[in-house]
């Protein structure tokens, strides 16, 4: 009989979609944030595979266009993390920044929480709202967001290079 042990789960096999869905619903129902390691690249470059994501409950607030939210996928019933690219009354259109197609229209009740923090290698990642939620959402909707971010990074890299010379 091995000694009883409590161990951190991070670094072990990732949570399954079902497990993450169940845990997120349980934690957010208690009005607390959930922090976990993301899988997949549908939200690259803002959220990459292995990033640590914190989702906070809506707490009565209405999510806005440009927000990255956790939602229950209407077909699979599992949790997804995508951006709101359009809103109309209580209907929200969601899409992964790095995907060509959207998730369809969701009601407010299908949105579980808002991504409030993304950490990569111990540093916070900017979530793409500083430029204005509507602009980011519009770029994501058109499929230009990832290219725009790559271009901005190239420009800023060149500026840094020039500055160091």
């Amino acid at each position, binding site marked *: 009989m091995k000694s*009883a042990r409590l161990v951190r789960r991070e670094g072990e096999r990732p949570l399954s979609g079902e497990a993450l869905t169940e845990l997120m619903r*349980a934690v957010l129902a208690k009005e607390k944030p959930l*922090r976990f390691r993301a899988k997949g690249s549908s939200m690259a470059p803002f959220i990459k595979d292995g990033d640590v994501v914190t989702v906070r409950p809506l707490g009565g607030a209405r999510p806005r266009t440009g927000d990255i939210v956790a939602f229950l996928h209407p077909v699979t019933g599992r949790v997804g993390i995508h951006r709101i690219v359009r809103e109309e009354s209580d209907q929200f259109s969601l899409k992964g920044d790095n995907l060509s197609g959207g998730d369809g229209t969701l009601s407010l009740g299908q949105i579980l929480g808002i991504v409030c923090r993304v950490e990569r290698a111990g540093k916070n990642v900017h979530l793409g709202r500083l430029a204005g939620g509507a602009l980011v959402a519009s770029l994501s909707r058109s499929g230009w967001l990832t290219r725009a971010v790559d271009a901005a990074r190239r420009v800023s890299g060149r500026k840094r290079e020039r500055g160091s010379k």
Partner: protein
Amino acid sequence: MESPISLDFAYGPSEDVVVREIEGEIIIVPLVSGIGDLEDELFTLNETGRAIWRKLDGLKPLRVVVSELAAEFDAPADLIEEDTVGLLQELARRKMIIRKGSASER
């Protein structure tokens, strides 16, 4: 300061955690009040830990838990006691369990 773990008391999950048994694994999520904590947030238990956790119903004194586990695992009670108390100390330190009361209080 936390009270030491006592065999005369019952213990159960605290309100500060969400616990789910999913796909044979017990996953413990501490409910943090802020989000500034840089520590990883998900915990799990090994097989022995799971056997102990499942018996923490907040009703049975730990002495009973130890004796049930000793019978189930066919192992010396003093070894089980040491292991169980050690795990509960760690769980209490992380505020994952609370003391529910002694048999004499009920």
